[in-house]
């Protein structure tokens, strides 16, 4: 209602004239004047209109004013409606009016004074108008409050929606800490039904071990209004606990008073788990480091650790300190300095500090491969060390130090030296020393083996031994294996083939090593020995024959002489007639044949045991004289060069045989002619050689094939097939060796011509003293030689 809006004034009187006069009086007010002549009519208007003030005559015929007022007042709507009674003043009336005072009631006594009436009505009109305005304002205010409340409600809903949807658990509490709201997540997590919680339900959810502390913390915050934060496990609906970081934030109103608490709970189980893992990893790491340090200390390998890229500080483990002869706390980085307690060498060169492996690794940032170093201690002791090093990098890839490993191989080095020495010794051995695997693969092959078989070490290493040597076993191979397995060794003779295809007999000793995986074979060439033994057997046979012949000769020759003499006497005996003498002469002739045969076959010759003085040139002349016919037949030109008489002490028969063999060989080598030169000279003592007599027999014959050369002095070796015994040169060498001399030969083969020279050398000392007596006693030669000596 606007201020200028007209208000309704209801005038009630049974007398129309009075109504008209009131109308006149109140007309000046400019308000709506409604007239009613009865109580009923007045009520109708009251119900129809909003009446600001009722002007009522007390004395009316049907219902008086007071009854009327009671009726109006009974209606709640009109309890505060202003009423002005018009009456003649009676005391009783005044009392009754007084009874209405509590409401908006006034009265006017008759006669009505227009100004009074007007002012009184106008007061109520103003009141009404003011009340209406107030009511309007109030309504508007209520509307605004309503709107505000609505907005608040919406905001609260939004907040709860928000709080329900954050990943954290959320809750709200009153100032006293009793929780009045939990987010849906809280219910979901705890499994507590949303309608079954009280303000302290959290006590059942927080882990029992933590409840007391949480309570304390919360209580303190409730009192002080300070923010609260704690971490504790909370039980979920399945009874498992997860860790939550829980915060309570106080909410203040505009006046700054605490109205409630807003709380959140953040699941930090993963974070806690991660932290625990990190903690566990850290512990493990620390343990590992401790282990590594322990390992480093007990490791038999020296370990150096440079703690900076300049290698100013290097620490070493126990093994390294011992290796370098240092105390455990000494800085190892002193290595290359001249006043260092140790010096390091590579090969022969002393290394500067910057050349040491750890320093190099740190300086170059590269791995330093294994190098062999020598460390010389202050005590003079030397150690052989295998060293390697690697750089260490920081997280930015820059060198922060280096680590080096040093392995003391002195012992091994020593063993290697010993082994090498032994291998050298093995190489000195004339026997073939072979190491092979059980499957026959050759692992070691000494110089003796190279010489014996003609195969070099490089050629046979890794090849199958018996395949290379074509070994023929005297017993089944399995038997040898069995022997090796049971007693570890096998001895026996094998027939093998050398590189040039020659068959040799070796005395073999095989031994299995302790690890039972390689076999050591020592093979000795006994071919010559076997042949020599054969030759010796032959010689012994001859000697035995000689002894038998001697006995037979004695037993036969004696009676033979007697019979010969008897027939000699009988032949011309005068008592015999012609026929008898003829028979006797026949018998004598036959006897002479018998004598001749026994002399030819049974006559062995043993030379005198004392050496005699002889001249080699004269002896050579004798031999050449005997061969004159053959020299002429073969059309050989003979040249003698005697620069010395070649006088010596010796057994002529032996010496004669030597030269007979050599000259005879030379002549046989030239069946179609050639030149034969025989020279004798004495050699002086020069170039450290021994003085002596040298006899050279040179022919221009067929020469000697290289493959025959090394077998030339072997017994029963002959290039003359059936013609030779194969003993000539062997016997000759044996004879010359008795005089500590030598026979050497050289054969030069050219396309059209070749020359072969055999040189016999007798040392002067021995030439003067004769052959060693020990051998002279065994000197047995054949009858052929004996005849030669007589010729």
């Amino acid at each position, binding site marked *: 209602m606007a201020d200028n809006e007209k208000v309704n004034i209801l005038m009630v009187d049974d007398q129309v004239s009075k109504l008209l006069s009131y109308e006149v009086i109140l007309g000046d007010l400019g308000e709506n004047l409604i007239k009613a002549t009865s109580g009923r009519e007045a009520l109708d208007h009251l119900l129809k209109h909003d009446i600001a003030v009722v002007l009522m005559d007390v004395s009316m015929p049907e219902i008086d004013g007071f009854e009327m007022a009671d009726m109006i007042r009974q209606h709640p709507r009109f309890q505060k409606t202003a009423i002005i009674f018009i009456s003649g003043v009676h005391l009783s009336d005044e009392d009754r009016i007084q009874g209405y005072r509590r409401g908006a009631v006034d009265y006017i006594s008759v006669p009505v004074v227009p100004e009074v009436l007007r002012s009184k009505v106008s007061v109520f009109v103003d009141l009404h108008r003011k009340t209406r305005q107030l009511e309007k304002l109030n309504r508007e205010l209520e509307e605004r409050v309503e709107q505000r409340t609505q907005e608040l409600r919406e905001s609260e809903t939004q907040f709860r929606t928000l709080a329900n949807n954050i990943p954290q658990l959320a809750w709200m509490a009153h100032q006293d800490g009793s929780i009045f709201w939990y987010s849906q997540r809280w219910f979901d997590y705890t499994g507590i039904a949303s309608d079954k919680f009280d303000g302290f339900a959290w006590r059942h959810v927080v882990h029992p071990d933590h409840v007391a502390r949480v309570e304390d913390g919360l209580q303190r915050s409730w009192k002080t209004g300070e923010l609260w934060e704690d971490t504790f496990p909370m039980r979920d609906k399945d009874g498992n606990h997860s860790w939550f970081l829980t915060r309570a934030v106080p909410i203040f109103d505009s006046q700054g008073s605490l109205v409630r608490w807003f709380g959140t709970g953040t699941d930090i189980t993963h974070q806690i788990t991660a932290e625990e893992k990190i903690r566990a990893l850290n512990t493990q790491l620390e343990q590992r480091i401790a282990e590594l340090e322990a390992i480093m200390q007990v490791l038999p390998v020296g370990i150096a650790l440079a703690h900076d890229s300049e290698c100013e500080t290097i620490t070493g483990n126990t093994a390294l300190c011992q290796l370098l002869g240092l105390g455990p706390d000494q800085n190892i980085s002193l290595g290359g300095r001249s006043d260092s307690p140790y010096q390091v060498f590579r090969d022969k060169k002393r290394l500067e500090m910057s050349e040491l492996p750890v320093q190099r690794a740190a300086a170059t940032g590269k791995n330093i491969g294994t190098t062999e170093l020598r460390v010389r201690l202050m005590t003079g002791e030397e150690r052989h060390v295998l060293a390697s090093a690697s750089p260490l990098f920081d997280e930015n890839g820059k060198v922060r130090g280096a680590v080096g490993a040093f392995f003391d191989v002195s012992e091994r080095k020593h063993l290697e030296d010993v082994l090498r020495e032994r291998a050298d010794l093995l190489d000195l051995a004339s026997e073939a020393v072979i190491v092979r695997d059980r499957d026959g693969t050759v692992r070691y092959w000494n110089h003796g083996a190279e010489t014996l078989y003609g195969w070099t070490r490089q050629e046979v290493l890794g090849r199958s031994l018996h395949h290379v040597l074509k070994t023929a076993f005297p017993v089944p191979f399995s038997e040898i294996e069995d022997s090796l397995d049971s007693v570890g060794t096998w001895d026996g003779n094998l027939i093998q083939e050398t590189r040039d295809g020659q068959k040799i007999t070796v005395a073999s000793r095989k031994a299995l090593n302790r690890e039972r995986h390689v076999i050591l074979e020592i093979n000795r060439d006994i071919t010559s020995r076997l042949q020599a033994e054969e030759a010796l057997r032959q010689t012994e046979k001859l000697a035995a024959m000689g002894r038998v012949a001697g006995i037979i000769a004695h037993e036969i020759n*004696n009676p033979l*002489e*007697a019979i010969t*003499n008897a027939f000699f006497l009988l032949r011309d005996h005068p008592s015999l007639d012609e026929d008898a003498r003829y028979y006797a002469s026949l018998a004598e002739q036959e006897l002479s044949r018998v004598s*001749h045969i*026994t002399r030819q076959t049974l006559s062995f010759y043993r030379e005198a*045991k004392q050496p005699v003085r002889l001249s080699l040139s004269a002896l050579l002349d004798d031999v050449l004289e005997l061969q004159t016919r053959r020299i002429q037949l073969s059309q050989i030109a003979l040249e003698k060069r005697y620069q010395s008489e070649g006088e010596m002490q010796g057994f002529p028969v032996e010496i004669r045989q030597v030269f007979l063999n050599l000259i005879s060989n030379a002549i046989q080598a030239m069946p179609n002619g050639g030149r034969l030169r025989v020279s004798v000279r004495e050699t002086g003592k020069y170039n450290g050689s021994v003085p002596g007599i040298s006899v050279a027999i040179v022919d221009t014959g067929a020469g000697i094939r290289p493959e025959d050369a090394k077998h030339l002095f072997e017994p029963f070796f002959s290039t003359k097939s059936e013609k030779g015994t194969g003993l000539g040169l062997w016997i000759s060498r044996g004879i010359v060796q008795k005089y500590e001399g030598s026979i050497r030969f050289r054969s030069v083969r050219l396309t059209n011509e070749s020359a072969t020279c055999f040189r016999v050398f007798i040392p002067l000392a021995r030439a003067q003293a004769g052959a060693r007596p020990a051998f002279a006693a065994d000197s047995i030669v054949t009858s052929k030689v004996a005849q030669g000596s007589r010729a």
Partner: protein
Amino acid sequence: MPEPATILCVDDEQVALFLRKAVLQKFGFEVVTASSAKDALRILSTQRVDLVLSDLLMPEVSGTELAKAIKEKYSGLPVVVVSGVNEIPPEVRYADLFISKLEGPVRLCERLREVLSQSRSASSAT
């Protein structure tokens, strides 16, 4: 014709000694026999001979040992050793000649004469 030479023939075998004596006599030598070296040395002490012809192999004292003993006492007396063994013994140098029994009677006598003539010329020269 000079006076026949006397030869002392020594052999332990009687048959051989008998026949050798006969052969030597047939060739005109005077022959004295001894059946051992000891026997021979005894004869030499009582009788003059021109030559001693001894077998080599005899019991007790051999022919060469006999030759050695004779040369010590009678250095000018020639000694010839005959043997059925065709092996020159070590002490053969004490004898003037070593000859095989198988040389036969004719050759034996020739060699004996050679030795005797050498011996005579040697003794006449002194």
